[in-house]
């Protein structure tokens, strides 16, 4: 196969990926993603777990260590089929807190600690560098395979040159599609789709090569099985330590690898996709590893001894003369390498810019505010970081010379990132995890990993001297890098795994238990651990773009319908659009936020808009600002409430006073009209008879008669006026009381005698208990007599019984005497009982011979002045009144 065709195919393939990414980005910006955000694409994008190490290296691994290569797939399989334990929570936390990377996850969980962010970032970069070098190496090796196989070896690149071209190309692609825009959700639809395409290519390539090997070379499944049993692989034995250790390690790595976190959590479009991926991703892994063993077995059998088993996927088809199949396999390997490098460098660049460059920039230039200035800084930082990460990878490749076996480097990188595991798992499952514990665990784990695994991987005398290998650090035997604490007999990989993670987890636990977390840390801890119970629901604004309608609904809720509509209309007009829905441009959103913050406070407005726009994280600082603002508002509204209560109490008092005044006014009017009526009647008759008398020539008897009438009427007038005067004196409380010591019996006797003048024609049967009446009162006897006269006269006037009776009973209670005056008449109807003590209240006009209806009113006033009371006594078989009077009336001070 001509080398030129290979390069041309590579370029065509890359251009095709560019095209895919470009079209998807266009569709994403138009909001038409559709099936591109399906579980299928999500699952396929997860396949960046399978790098070139898997694609080429697994066969080599199988050729060297038998079925042990399966452990690298079993770990992720267990994690995914057990998604309900951990991944579900991880994805929910990532989406709810808008986590941008694994460093962001750790730093957010432990109170937004930037220190932890920096630690995780540095660890990730250090661990990823050899891994990226590994990818470059695999591409270079695969080029080399074709180059050496080419008969016309005229156009040939050196290995270093190939690596530099590949690294540059990947950097350009990643920068173009990874840093096109600054989206806080860090979603890169174009790249994710391109990776999904690459996932299909590598799966198809591996299955094609495998099928060719099984059915093309071996001649069927049964034949293949027979050859497996006959091969060197049959000598394979399970090494218990490595078997379990590597399953655990790969399970930890699939959660902790920055690139896996990127596609699994950050790029996740929908939590539901995870459910599908829980079985689809293991299926993909199984597909990827299905033909590894046959390829390894046939490769070992067919290819000359000493050929690199890592390249069997390519060399086997080439040796069998299948150029096209080899080309497909080459593209599969190329895809594996490129997709891993692209996503890894994006994830690392996000971490580097967010946790190292931007904090530094803000510290060096504190005046640089948010806005376009900072955005361009972030983008530039990411571009430089991507270039830097690839340069590091190339540098590592250049220095190491690409000699080590692929699998060894891969496992070392896995163990490096797995150091994040205790802090991560502890952080999302245990509220007691603290920043100090996490930092201690990370640093110790990282140090142990570097000392026992990473630095020794360069070989004796490269970084660590051979004496250290042999005698330990500072000549202390139990500090040998591959035999800590005298455990020298272990497999180096398992030794490093055991010691680094054990010491890491111990430091994490002890540090967490012994320290006390800060407030933000505790808040974040609760929010992470209880993410499924939290008040914040799942983010439904998954599109990451603001819907103007949703913004309008929210604005209406806060500003009111008219104000919101007019604001939106103005904004739409300013954008040259008709209607009420402007485009959610940054300027419009800023204006809206400013407007809303006038209503709900800056922090809340920011949080609300960012929730709709999906542009920024709702941080704990935001929430705290919201809380303090709400506290202020609550205090203010409490003040308002108390003021309002006072006002409404005052208003109630005023209303009552007003009503009283109105009643008084009505009473006064009624009183005046009654008075004038009462006065007019006698006046009319006086005037009429006096007019007749002034006519003269009247018989003397008529004169005498008319004179008597006039006199009577004048007496009545006088009495009325006397009563009125009396009443007003009593009501004003200016009455002069003449206190004497008098027998109650005398008072009643006097009253009965005086009342006999009223309707003297009626005879009453009076029941009295004179014994009980023998009690002396200190009171105004004349006034009290007046009351009894009134009551007895009323009884004489109004009692309609055939045999009228009057019952007077006296009782003494405490310092008070009660006198009940009861007749056996019809009594007073219930509805009138409340009225009888009012002035001019007369029940019927039948018996108006008496006074002007002032009698009982006067009685009441007298009793009030005497310190007693008078009340109607219902249910006595007739009209009954109870007079209560104190035994000893003390003179009032005034």
């Amino acid at each position, binding site marked *: 196969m001509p080398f030129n065709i290979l390069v041309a195919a590579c370029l065509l393939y890359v251009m095709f990926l560019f095209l895919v990414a470009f079209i998807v980005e266009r569709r994403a910006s138009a909001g038409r993603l559709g099936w591109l955000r399906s579980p299928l694409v999500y699952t396929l994008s997860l396949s960046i777990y399978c790098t070139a190490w898997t694609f080429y290296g697994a066969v080599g691994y199988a050729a060297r260590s*038998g*079925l042990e290569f*399966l452990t690298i797939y*079993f770990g992720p*399989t*267990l*994690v*995914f*089929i*057990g*998604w*309900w*334990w951990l991944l*579900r929570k991880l994805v929910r936390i990532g989406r709810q807190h808008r986590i941008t990377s694994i460093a962001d996850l750790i730093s957010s969980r432990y109170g937004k600690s930037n220190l932890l962010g920096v630690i995780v970032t540095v660890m990730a970069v250090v661990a990823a560098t050899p891994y990226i070098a590994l990818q470059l190496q695999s591409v270079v090796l695969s080029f080399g395979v074709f180059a050496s196989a080419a008969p016309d070896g005229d156009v040939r690149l050196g290995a270093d040159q190939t690596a530099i071209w590949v690294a540059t190309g990947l950097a350009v692609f990643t920068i173009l599609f990874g840093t096109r825009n600054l989206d806080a959700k860090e979603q890169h639809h174009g790249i994710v789709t391109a990776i999904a395409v690459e996932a299909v290519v590598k799966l198809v390539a591996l299955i094609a090569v495998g099928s060719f090997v099984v059915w093309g070379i071996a001649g069927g499944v049964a034949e293949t*099985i*027979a050859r*497996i*049993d006959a*091969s060197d*692989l*049959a*000598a*394979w*034995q*399970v090494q*218990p330590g490595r*078997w*379990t250790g590597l*399953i655990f390690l790969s399970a930890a790595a699939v959660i902790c690898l920055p690139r896996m976190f990127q596609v699994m959590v950050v790029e996740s479009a929908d*939590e*539901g996709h995870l*459910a*599908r991926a*829980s*079985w*689809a991703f*293991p*299926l993909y892994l*199984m597909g990827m590893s*299905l033909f590894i*063993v046959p390829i390894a077995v046939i490769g070992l059998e067919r290819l000359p001894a000493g050929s690199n088993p890592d390249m069997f996927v390519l060399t086997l088809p080439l040796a069998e003369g299948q150029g096209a199949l080899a080309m497909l396999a080459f593209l599969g390997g190329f895809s594996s390498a490129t997709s891993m490098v692209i996503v890894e460098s994006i994830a690392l660049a996000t971490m580097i810019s967010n946790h190292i460059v931007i904090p530094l920039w803000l510290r060096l230039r504190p005046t640089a505010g948010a806005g376009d200035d900072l955005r361009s800084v972030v983008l530039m930082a990411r571009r430089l970081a991507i270039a830097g990460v690839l340069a590091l990878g190339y540098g590592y490749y250049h220095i190491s010379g690409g000699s080590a076996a692929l699998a060894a480097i891969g496992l070392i990188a896995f163990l490096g990132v797995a150091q994040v595991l205790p802090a991560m798992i502890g952080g999302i499952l245990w509220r007691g995890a603290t920043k100090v514990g996490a930092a201690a665990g990370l640093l110790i784990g990282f140090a142990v990993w570097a000392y026992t695994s990473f630095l020794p991987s360069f070989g004796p005398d490269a970084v660590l001297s051979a004496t250290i290998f042999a005698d330990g650090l500072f000549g202390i035997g139990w500090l040998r890098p591959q035999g800590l604490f005298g455990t020298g007999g272990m497999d180096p990989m398992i030794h490093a795994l055991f010691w680094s993670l054990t010491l890491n987890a111990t430091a994490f636990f002890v540090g967490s238990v012994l320290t006390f977390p800060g407030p933000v840390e505790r808040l974040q801890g609760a929010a992470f651990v209880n993410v*499924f*119970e939290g008040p914040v629901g799942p983010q439904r604004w998954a599109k990451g773009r603001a819907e103007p309608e949703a913004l309008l609904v929210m604005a209406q809720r806060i500003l009111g319908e008219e104000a919101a509509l007019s604001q939106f209309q103005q904004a739409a007009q300013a954008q040259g659009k008709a209607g009420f829905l402007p485009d959610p441009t940054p300027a419009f959103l800023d204006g809206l936020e400013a407007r809303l913050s006038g209503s709900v406070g800056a922090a809340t407005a920011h949080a609300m808009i960012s929730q709709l726009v999906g542009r920024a994280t709702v941080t704990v600082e935001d929430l705290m600002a919201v809380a303090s603002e709400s506290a202020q508002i609550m205090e203010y509204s409490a003040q308002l409430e108390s003021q309002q209560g006072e006002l409404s109490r005052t208003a109630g008092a005023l209303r009552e006073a007003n009503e009283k005044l109105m009643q008084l006014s009505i009473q006064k009017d009624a009183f005046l009209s009654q008075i004038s009526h009462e006065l007019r009647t006698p006046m009319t008759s006086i005037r009429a008879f006096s007019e007749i008398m002034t006519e003269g020539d009247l018989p003397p008897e008529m004169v005498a008669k008319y004179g008597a009438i006039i006199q009577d009427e004048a007496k009545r007038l006088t009495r009325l006026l006397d009563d009125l005067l009396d009443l007003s004196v009593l009501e004003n409380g200016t009455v002069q009381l003449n206190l004497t010591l008098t027998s109650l019996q005398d008072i009643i006797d006097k009253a009965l005698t005086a009342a006999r003048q009223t309707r003297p024609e009626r005879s009453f049967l009076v029941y009295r208990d004179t014994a009980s009446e023998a009690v002396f009162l200190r009171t105004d006897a004349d006034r009290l007599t007046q009351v009894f006269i009134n009551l007895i006269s009323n009884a004489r006037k109004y009692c309609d019984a055939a045999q009228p009776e009057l019952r007077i009973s006296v009782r003494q209670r405490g310092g008070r005497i009660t006198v009940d005056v009861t007749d056996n008449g019809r009594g007073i109807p219930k509805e009138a009982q409340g009225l009888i003590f009012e002035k001019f209240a007369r029940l019927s006009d039948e018996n108006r011979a008496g006074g002007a209806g002032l009698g009982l009113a006067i009685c009441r006033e007298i009793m009030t002045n005497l310190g007693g009371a008078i009340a109607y006594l219902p249910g006595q078989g007739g009209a009954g009144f109870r007079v209560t009077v104190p035994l000893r009336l003390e003179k009032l001070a005034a």
Partner: protein
Amino acid sequence: MARSRRPLFLARAPYRRRRLRDAARLLPVFSALLLILPLLWPADTASRLTSGDVIYFFGLWVLMILAAAAFAPGLQSGDQSGDQSGDEED
């Protein structure tokens, strides 16, 4: 607070959902046990064949995938129907 408001017994559908979650939690545990089962196999390679190992592992793998695929739809719908209290006792 919220714990006290939680009912002691559940209706049929939420009950089934809880048991499905229990099954989903146990699946990786059982799978892991079966995956490290080869540690107990006799060490002498003469008595068995590598192809048998291959068939065992891939058969187990298929079973794991099928079980996960059987659980996934129920877990997902339960998750979306608002019953979010996934990590509590019943």
